[in-house]
């Protein structure tokens, strides 16, 4: 066993073992490598090693026009593609001072919350699978299939949607959008009850997660954690409430908080968030207005296909926009944070006035949440590392970018 690298560290009476967890370990959600120093089964030191999935997405985006770069955002956090599209679009809209029609705004919130459901369902399935509750995985993925089908109806792809574009939506909403959402709203609450039946009072689940991966609110703030990982520690910070974007201030929802700062509270927070997301979706679909799905600003946003064939002006704008890309009105920079499934996600875009962004910086929630893992696992058993990785909800595509 060469890769185990068994070697004594420190004084001879204290025999520590250094082992690699990952990058091929199935419970590390991809290609995360954790270098663990173990004393027996107790973790003394934990060092995450990342970069195995580095694809240079930020640099790729700088070499594409603003609309083309949107397709790269799907691939950052591949479990929440619409949230990435949303964050990027908001930043670009701020840079271009674009208006978004109300229908697009409401539909975006609806889709963003559906994506949050999708992201949390994958998290719940894989987190439970890692700890040993295998059945959950099949149930959550069954429900996720419904959401992916809806994304396919909207955008044409199940995962790489590229649906929310700067200025509105890429296509109009499908005709049976309302009906599909109503079905989801009807079926999902009872399904979430089922998940809770399986896990919340399950003694094995409680033993594996309660008191595991504790991070104090001070530490959580100090490490810059966001999302349910932070709220599990009882810190009330949700970008949707603290800094509302795209009309979130009109929606009535609660921010679930934990109190024990452990994996179990983070689990409760996320499950409560599933319900809150459904609540937001219900409000969004009830109030979904009619109107254009894309901004009427022809200088920056592609005209609808019908206009291209009927109006000369739209045709000219279409050619200009496709061939030259969207050229920002002025040099500048923009950053808009949103609450993604994992935490605060933001795109910082610097423009030098040309058709391509000068710099795109992603503020990924997973990367920053992962940086605090040593605080949660040191002094605990090696089996708890798996529970903690699951409860942080990392996506390595976003960590490495």
């Amino acid at each position, binding site marked *: 066993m060469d890769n185990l690298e068994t070697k004594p560290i420190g004084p001879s009476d204290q025999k520590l073992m250094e082992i690699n967890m990952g990058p091929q370990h199935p419970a590390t959600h991809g290609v995360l490598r954790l270098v663990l120093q173990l004393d027996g089964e107790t973790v003394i030191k934990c060092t995450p090693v990342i970069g195995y999935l580095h694809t240079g997405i930020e640099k790729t985006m700088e070499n*594409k026009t603003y*609309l*083309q*770069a949107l*397709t*790269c955002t799907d691939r950052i956090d591949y479990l929440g593609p619409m949230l990435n599209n949303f964050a990027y679009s908001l930043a670009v809209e701020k840079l271009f001072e674009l208006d978004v029609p109300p229908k697009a705004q409401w539909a975006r919130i609806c889709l963003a919350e559906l994506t949050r459901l999708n992201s949390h369902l994958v998290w719940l399935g894989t987190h439970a699978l890692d700890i040993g509750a295998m*059945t959950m995985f099949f*149930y959550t993925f*069954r429900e996720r*299939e419904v959401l992916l*089908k809806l994304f*396919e*109806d*909207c*955008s*044409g*792809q199940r995962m*790489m949607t*590229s649906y929310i574009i700067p200025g509105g939506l*890429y*296509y109009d909403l*499908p*005709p049976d959008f309302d009906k599909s959402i109503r079905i989801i709203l009807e079926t999902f609450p009872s399904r979430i009850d*089922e998940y809770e*039946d*399986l896990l919340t*009072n*399950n*003694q*094995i689940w409680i033993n594996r997660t309660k008191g595991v991966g504790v991070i104090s609110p001070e530490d959580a703030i100090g490490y810059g954690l966001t999302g349910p990982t932070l709220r599990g520690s009882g810190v009330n910070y949700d970008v949707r409430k603290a800094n509302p974007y795209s009309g979130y201030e009109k929606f009535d929802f609660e921010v679930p908080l934990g109190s024990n700062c452990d994996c179990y509270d983070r689990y409760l927070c996320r499950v409560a968030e599933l319900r809150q997301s459904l609540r937001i979706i219900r409000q969004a679909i009830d109030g979904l207005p009619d109107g254009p799905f894309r901004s009427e600003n022809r200088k920056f946003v*592609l005209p*609808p*296909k*019908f206009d*291209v*064939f*009927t109006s000369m002006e739209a*045709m000219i704008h*279409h*050619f200009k926009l*496709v*061939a030259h890309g969207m050229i920002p009105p002025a040099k500048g920079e923009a950053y808009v944070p949103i609450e993604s499934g994992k935490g605060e996600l933001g795109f910082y875009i610097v423009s030098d006035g040309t058709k391509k962004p000068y710099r795109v910086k992603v503020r990924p929630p997973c990367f920053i949440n992962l940086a605090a893992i040593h605080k949660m696992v040191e002094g605990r058993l090696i089996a708890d590392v798996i529970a903690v990785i699951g409860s942080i909800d990392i996506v390595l595509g976003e960590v490495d970018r």
Partner: protein
Amino acid sequence: MVSFLKTVIKAIPVGLSVTFKNIFRKPTTLEYPEVKPDLSPQYRGLHYLARYDNGEERCVCCGLCAAACPADCIYMEPYENERGERKARIYIINEIRCIFCGYCEEACPEEAIFLGKEFEFSKYEIPDFIYSKEMLLGNFDRIEMERRKKLGMEFIRKTRFDFRMPTPSIGDSESSIEK
């Protein structure tokens, strides 16, 4: 001991009841190669180049799809045909580079390129994935043939765009596609 009793009396029956309920639910899985998945009308799959009713290709090689493509997978070279029309001499899509975002069909001003519903086009050799113009037109012919077999089937892309130019109608027997 208390927790053990709680587990035996409460948690296990509750959990098992969920499992029991799910025995009677309809399975969501498909026996894939035999049963094909039901794709939505918007699905973005393998490209095809559309033709006019008389069998001529629609593409005029304007290059907008190549300009819009984020993956740079489209290459084309124009020529002038005997009637002085601009057409594509070479039109290549590298389906391995393609990310199936659908920007090309959004960019196309001639309603020439579309993403079809085909997703099973695996091959043994990488060069086989470089689709020439003839192959892409062939994709369209195949779809069109199939569509004629099932009369009344909607044209694939009808739901997405509100087109000005009607796409080839169904009952056209004079079309040169069969020739």
